[in-house]
């Protein structure tokens, strides 16, 4: 019954995201309407009941993420979608999901901020909030699709990573990608991951004792493995603990499990990079402008390439470090004041000049602007 077919269809980004969620096995949505993400809610409201799933419009975004975590603890894959102001409201409970290790997916269709900002204008200004939005040290996974088929694929991947690593995963969708349409062939079925269930007897179950992967097996409520889930610092039994060693070990493990999975979580597209002297680093819709610019520059014999992180968090430190060591100049292009630029600066260790292209007026970065930046790099 899922609207997933093998013939080409014209699909909007928001719909692709909703269809990806359903294909990944999501059967619960809770959300509060906000531009420019409401199309995802509307698609879910239409489609979820057909799958026997639950769609709930809640009173605010705090309730949305809370309900998502609640459903997930019951074993139901769950998602919420929002935009800037709503994403801000969700932060406390995103931290809860990270701390209590509850698989959950949050889509943030980014719009111009801060505050109410520019509700209908595209921006990429929540990249750092996706990393550090909630208080405290915590792991983060954030994915940034740049096409309609990727909006589908990355939503599927968000669920798979959430299940595998028992953590909240954030999909950072650009307004432009969420609202535009492309013809795509969406797969009939996709590969899905499920949380690993405990195999020991209930009496022996330690809900927060992790194997070497750092990810403890997870029993759903109602499975017969009665256990405690809390956002307080907790021991292997899941019970609150004020023990310093327990607290330290927990945070170290939470950060460590994502580090251990880094290779698998990282995903990027490399375009015309082999001989590139200048590397443009861009994501989401900006990467498409960058692609056009690279093609154009290449036609004129310039050695330009594009590195497009699809996984934004964890950040592709190593690859950036390699570029910095081998290439002449790195250019970051993003619709914010330089959020990924700072990461690139850190990862490149001062080994090569960095140029930044930033746009924060509510319009997208154009291929022409990138070409101008390339010209700057070449003098």
């Amino acid at each position, binding site marked *: 019954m899922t609207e997933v077919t093998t013939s080409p269809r*014209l699909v909007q980004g928001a719909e692709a995201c909703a269809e990806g969620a359903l294909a990944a096995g999501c059967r619960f949505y809770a959300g509060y309407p906000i531009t420019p993400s409401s199309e995802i809610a509307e698609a879910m409201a239409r489609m979820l*009941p057909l799958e026997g799933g639950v769609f709930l419009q809640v009173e605010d975004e705090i309730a949305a993420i809370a309900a998502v975590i609640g459903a997930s603890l019951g074993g139901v894959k769950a998602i919420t979608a929002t935009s800037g102001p709503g994403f801000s409201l969700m932060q406390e409970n995103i931290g809860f999901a990270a701390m209590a290790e509850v698989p959950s997916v949050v889509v943030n269709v980014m719009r111009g901020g801060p505050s109410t900002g520019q509700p209908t204008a595209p921006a990429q200004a929540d990249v750092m909030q996706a990393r550090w939005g909630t208080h405290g040290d915590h792991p983060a996974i954030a994915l940034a699709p740049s096409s309609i088929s990727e909006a589908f694929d990355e939503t599927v991947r968000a669920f798979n990573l959430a299940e595998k690593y028992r953590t909240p995963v954030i999909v950072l969708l650009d307004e432009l990608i969420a609202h535009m349409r492309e013809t795509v062939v969406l797969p009939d079925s996709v590969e899905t991951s499920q949380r690993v269930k405990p195999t020991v007897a209930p009496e022996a179950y330690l809900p927060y004792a992790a194997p070497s992967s750092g990810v403890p097996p997870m029993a759903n409520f109602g499975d017969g493995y009665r256990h405690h889930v809390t956002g307080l610092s907790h021991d292997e039994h899941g019970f609150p603990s004020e023990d310093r060693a327990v607290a330290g070990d927990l945070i170290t493990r939470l950060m460590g499990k994502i580090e251990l999975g880094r290779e698998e979580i990282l995903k990027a597209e490399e375009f015309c990079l082999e001989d590139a002297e200048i590397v443009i680093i861009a994501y989401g819709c900006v990467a498409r402008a960058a692609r056009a610019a690279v093609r154009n520059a290449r036609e004129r014999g310039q050695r330009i390439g594009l590195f497009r992180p699809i996984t934004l968090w964890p950040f592709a430190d190593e690859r950036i470090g390699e570029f910095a060591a081998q290439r002449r100049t790195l250019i970051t292009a993003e619709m914010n004041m330089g959020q990924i630029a700072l990461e690139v600066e850190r990862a490149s260790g001062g080994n090569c000049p960095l140029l930044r292209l930033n746009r924060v007026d509510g319009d997208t970065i154009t*291929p022409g602007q990138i070409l101008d930046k390339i010209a700057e790099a070449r003098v």
Partner: protein
Amino acid sequence: MFNYDKYLRMQRLPHIWCSGCGNGIISKALLRAIEKLGLEQDRVCLVSGIGCSSRLPGYLDFNTLHTTHGRPIAFASGLKLGRPDLDVVVITGDGDALAIGGNHFVHAARRNLNLTVVLFNNGVYGMTGGQLAPTTPFDMVASTAPYQNIEQPLDACKLATAAGAGYVARGTTYKSQLTERLIIDGMRHRGFALIEVMTNCNVYYGRPNKKSTLDLLRWEKEAAIDHKLFEKMDARQRNGKFPIGRLHQDARPEYMELYRELIARARQKAETAAQKKPESRPAAAPPNSPRAAVAVRLSGSGGQGLIFAGVVLAEAAGVYGGRHVVQNQVYGPEARGGASKSEVIISDSEIDYPKPTEIDLHLALTQEACDRYCGDLKASGTLIVDADNVSSIPRGEFTVYRLPIVETTRKKVGKTLVANVVSLGAATALFRVVSPQALEQAVLARAPKGTEELNRRALAVGFALGDSARTG
């Protein structure tokens, strides 16, 4: 003697509550209720927020979830909706449920989802050391109300009733048997059930207000009046008293029952739609020699259906013509009036930048749209305007066609509603971005049921209009 042991996580004891605290009494009433209801330990979920009272689930051997301050009802709603087979009970304090979590409390009551909320009302913030709560009585002292409270306390039961809760009751720690019965009653009720239990915090509420545990219990004993009796009391008699017992119950349908009906309705609708509308299979793309990418902009006023036209054109090119397409549109207030536009890029190769940088074909049905959106039309491009609605043509080297689109639609089709489809027909006849066959397939696939004939006619009129302009 009731044996509580099987429900306790012994290794977690002693608890954090002060001696003399009323929380233990409520906890015991809850356990007796669960036992008497014969609930399976594995199927019971206790969900709490943050506060002294919210620490209870940690001590009890069920599926227990200790969430964030004020949010347990929201977490519990997700859990219950995802797993209606589980018995979900919310344990919350008065600050948790009525201050920071007030919004969730109101809306969960309104939804009438089958949750049981046991609200421990001690009139103060216990966990954080005795600050003012939304339930602190008038005139009392709290650590953040050193000169006495000047706010009116909130009545949780009245609030829940007004919001639409199916079951509302109040008990006290003094009358623990009553409290137990009310919890049983509330858990049996299908719908949102609130059991508010008046309890005491002798340390943070009692001490600053010079009241011992005994004073506080005596107050519970004397101020709590059976609701039937309370009903009969006049305002003067009610002063300083509060009603206890089952205060409200109704048989409004529970949320999940309604949701199951909604699912059935949705499926029924989908089935009917599938039967009535045979899927039009996209034709195999005709072999084409590569052409240059084309950017089309359709503009007019909001409500003229140009976004729909953009989608149809994109489908004609992408789905029925086998080419790469990207379709964009104005978004936000513009789409609801004023000037509106939809853009389609059509290409034989992958489209990188998804917005047109230059336009090859621009259609404008209004003067405003023409003025506003014509700036990036190529010198070699084509501008089609509605002859009657666009009088001033922007300067440029592009080719201009003035076609009486709206007027012809009115005359020959009858409904100006389909001027968008007539426009597509005319534009296609003049400027073959898609084949007429592909366009017709796309229009018919998108046309609402029963309007197929109307749309077919509109297309034919549009083709003829475009053809005559080309040859004329």
